């Protein structure tokens, strides 16, 4: 029998970026908020300290900051005709755990989506006609517009202290920035970091190819800064230990640095760590969530009633919790009916390597998570897709995130995999190989979805989430097209150029990105989506679902900026519109 606690105003499931932002915004609104985090508490001091944080084996290779798959993992298959098997060790993506979630170990590459992304189906049909969208692609409009979200992008970027050069200021194209970005109401709060040699070589070659290079917007701070919440940040020193690591310098935007200092200890906020939520309790007749049930650190079942429930866990964990709670209609890939689990998308990645002369010193260890230069000439709707046979696109970037040698020792494809030849090649190419990332969009396909696995269970005995996914033909064509553009630029840099194309079936083994999106998507009606434009569940108006699981498709950009913007947008709707008159904010 679960212990039943007194009701609170708001219960948050998960305390990463979105949980921290909602905790701040809703306690400011006068609400009593409880944050449930299944992991433990951690802070910059004492948990992320140099030099011990700079341990590639412990954190990058053995995944020291990631969710332990022995407690919970997913099962995976490419097609419904296969039997899904558990992802027994982490690989393709790395979900976080503990206070701050993946907001601790991200890189800080902070991109806005394009205006067309929010109205993608309407936009594509209007620009190209009906036939541009391939059969099976379940592309839809998001239910809100870029213009509506813009102030919240701006706010999140100020909370993070993003550095960059504005490319489009209220419709005016600015020199040095990204001419294809959507209009910004303000310049970036901080300048970009100085760009390394590889980025400069890429920028020159990209310009020769007719493209428009600019420094990637970065959440690695370029100067001391105090954000709108009053949290102080310090400049990044380019140590090269960013992704998969916690920052000891207060220099990478994270919940710990940017939000939690103003939340933890607040009289209206209570953090409960070691608390794994297993159900959202649901009043089916009243169409209301009544609270959540969780297992506390002692293994006891606890019921926490709440007037508002917000799911703030990592993308697919939110989807799993909705499935375990029986809220909403699971998607059926045969009939196309149901919405929960639908439109699971990912990120379509490829790369190009330039093996330069050995006397070229690129010094790859002088890195930071979002340090680099990119072009968006072939991303989203920045280019004309007429006659190309696909929609979507990718940015091409020369990132220099760090030169940690266990995982980064590039060699040409004809190098032996071991022995003297391998050893010589590793030595020869370590400091003189320039790598380009082709970071592509992922379009939803009716065969790609999330549901509960019929066989495998987590350590508490609940069904694992089952992922069914392969890259649609549309995305393979897109990736090849933009990879060709990257090869063209690479050839102008000078050196031996090799492309690692998006070939074969999707595999959960090699790391690609932790940009898992969709599954609890937003939209205009309950027929096509799980939540409305305010991330409010269609079947329970006091249940809000945060995160990238709400994206109907995944554009060719990193998802975090939009995760933060949508959380602030939803928080504003809850504060200004919902609390005074709880109801569905969009008529069904």
């Amino acid at each position: 029998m679960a212990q039943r606690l007194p009701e609170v105003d708001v219960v948050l499931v998960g305390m990463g970026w979105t949980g921290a932002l909602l905790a701040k915004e809703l306690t400011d609104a006068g609400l009593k908020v409880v944050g449930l985090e299944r992991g433990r508490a951690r802070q910059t001091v004492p948990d992320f300290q140099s030099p011990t944080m700079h341990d590639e084996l412990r954190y990058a290779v053995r995944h020291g900051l990631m969710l332990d798959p022995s407690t919970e993992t997913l099962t995976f298959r490419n097609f419904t005709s296969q039997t899904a098997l558990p992802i027994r060790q982490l690989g393709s993506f790395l979900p976080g755990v503990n206070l701050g979630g993946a907001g601790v170990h991200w890189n800080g590459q902070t991109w806005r989506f394009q205006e067309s992304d929010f109205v993608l189906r309407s936009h594509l049909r209007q620009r190209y006609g009906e036939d541009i969208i391939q059969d099976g692609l379940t592309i839809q409009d998001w239910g809100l517009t870029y213009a509506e979200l813009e102030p919240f992008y701006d706010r999140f970027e100020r909370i993070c202290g993003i550095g960059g050069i504005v490319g489009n200021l209220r419709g005016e194209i600015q020199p040095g920035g990204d001419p294809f970005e959507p209009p910004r109401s303000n310049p970036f709060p901080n300048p970009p970091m100085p760009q390394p040699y590889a980025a400069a070589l890429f920028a020159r070659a990209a310009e020769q190819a007719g493209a428009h290079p600019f420094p990637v917007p970065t959440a690695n701070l370029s100067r001391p800064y105090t954000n709108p919440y009053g949290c102080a940040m310090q400049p990044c020193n380019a140590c090269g230990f960013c992704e998969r690591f916690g920052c000891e310098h207060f220099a990478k935007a994270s919940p710990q640095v940017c939000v939690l200092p103003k939340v933890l200890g607040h009289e209206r906020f209570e953090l409960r760590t070691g608390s794994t939520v297993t159900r959202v309790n649901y009043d089916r007749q009243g169409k209301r969530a009544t609270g959540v049930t969780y297992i506390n650190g002692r293994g006891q079942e606890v019921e926490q009633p709440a007037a508002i429930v917000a799911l703030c866990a990592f993308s697919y964990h939110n989807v799993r919790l909705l499935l375990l709670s029986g809220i909403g209609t699971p998607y059926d890939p045969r009939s196309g009916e149901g919405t929960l689990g639908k439109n699971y998308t990912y990120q379509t990645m490829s790369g190009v390597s330039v093996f330069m002369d050995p006397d070229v010193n690129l010094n790859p260890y002088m890195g930071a998570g979002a340090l680099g230069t990119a072009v968006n000439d072939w991303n989203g709707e920045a280019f004309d897709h007429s006659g190309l046979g696909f929609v979507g696109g990718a940015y091409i970037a020369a990132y220099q995130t760090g030169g940690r040698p266990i995982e980064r020792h590039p060699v040409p494809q004809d190098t032996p995999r071991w022995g003297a030849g391998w050893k010589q090649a590793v030595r020869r190419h370590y400091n003189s190989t320039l790598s380009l990332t082709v970071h592509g969009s992922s379009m939803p396909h009716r065969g790609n979805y999330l549901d509960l696995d019929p066989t495998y269970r987590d350590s508490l005995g609940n069904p694992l989430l089952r992922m069914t996914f392969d890259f649609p033909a549309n995305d393979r064509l897109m990736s090849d097209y933009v990879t060709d553009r990257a090869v063209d630029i690479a050839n102008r840099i000078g050196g031996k150029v090799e492309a690692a194309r998006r070939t074969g079936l999707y595999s959960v083994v090699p790391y690609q990105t932790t940009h898992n999106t969709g599954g609890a998507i937003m939209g205009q009606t309950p027929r096509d989506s799980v939540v409305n434009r305010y991330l409010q569940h269609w079947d329970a108006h006091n249940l809000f679902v945060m995160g990238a699981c709400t994206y109907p498709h995944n554009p060719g950009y990193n998802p975090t900026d939009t995760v933060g913007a949508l959380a602030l947008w939803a928080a504003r709707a809850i504060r200004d519109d919902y609390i005074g008159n709880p109801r569905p904010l969009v008529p069904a």
Partner: protein
Amino acid sequence: MTPDLSRRGLLLSSGSLAAVPLTGPTEAQSHDTMPATPMAAPTLWRFFTADQASLVAAMVDRLIPPDAEFTGAVGAGVPQFIDGQLAGAWGSGARLYRLGPFAEGTPEQGYQLPYTPAELYRTSLSLVADWVRGGYGSRFEELDPRLQDEALRSLESGEAGFSELPSDAFFETLLANTVEGFLSDPMYGGNRDMVGWRMVGFPGPYAGYVNLLDRHGLNFNRPPRGIAEALREHAQHHAPTLQR
């Protein structure tokens, strides 16, 4: 995305830190009954038997052989590194989902064997020793290097054909652990004298370079230092001032 990740469907590479630093070779024992001439320091193995350690050492020194300038896997302490990993949490299958049922699966579904890393090594090393003895008529360690490489290629391709497990699953894990041991921080027992880092030119884990970013093409040749050296410098920097 890199070519060396392409075969990792078979690879057991994930697990939590074996947080216990390795003891290096111990000092030579002095004992009344021991001869007066100094003996080579015995290596204390925490996981391997002496025979297993001998076989592993011979294999990894072909994967990363010594050359005129830089020592190979054995000189870098890779066998000691792997021994420590297998004796610790990673070897025991930490961060590995181990519930059944087990099925072979596709390469895209990744590692699906029921073995922990420690079990994979124990089982495989015995199979490899027997298979080499049966096929080549001697121990792996005694083979000509050309034949050692041939045997390793058979393990790599799966042609060695063991019934208990696919030989390539073991080979891929051994290869990954060898690279880890050659290039990880020396506190784990490998990368001895920072040979791997000196070879590629990686200056080690503790530094900040923001003021050097725009010095394009800089020949940055500072000798590497590991976490232990950085910690010592850090401690000296913050040494408490003696009062009184």
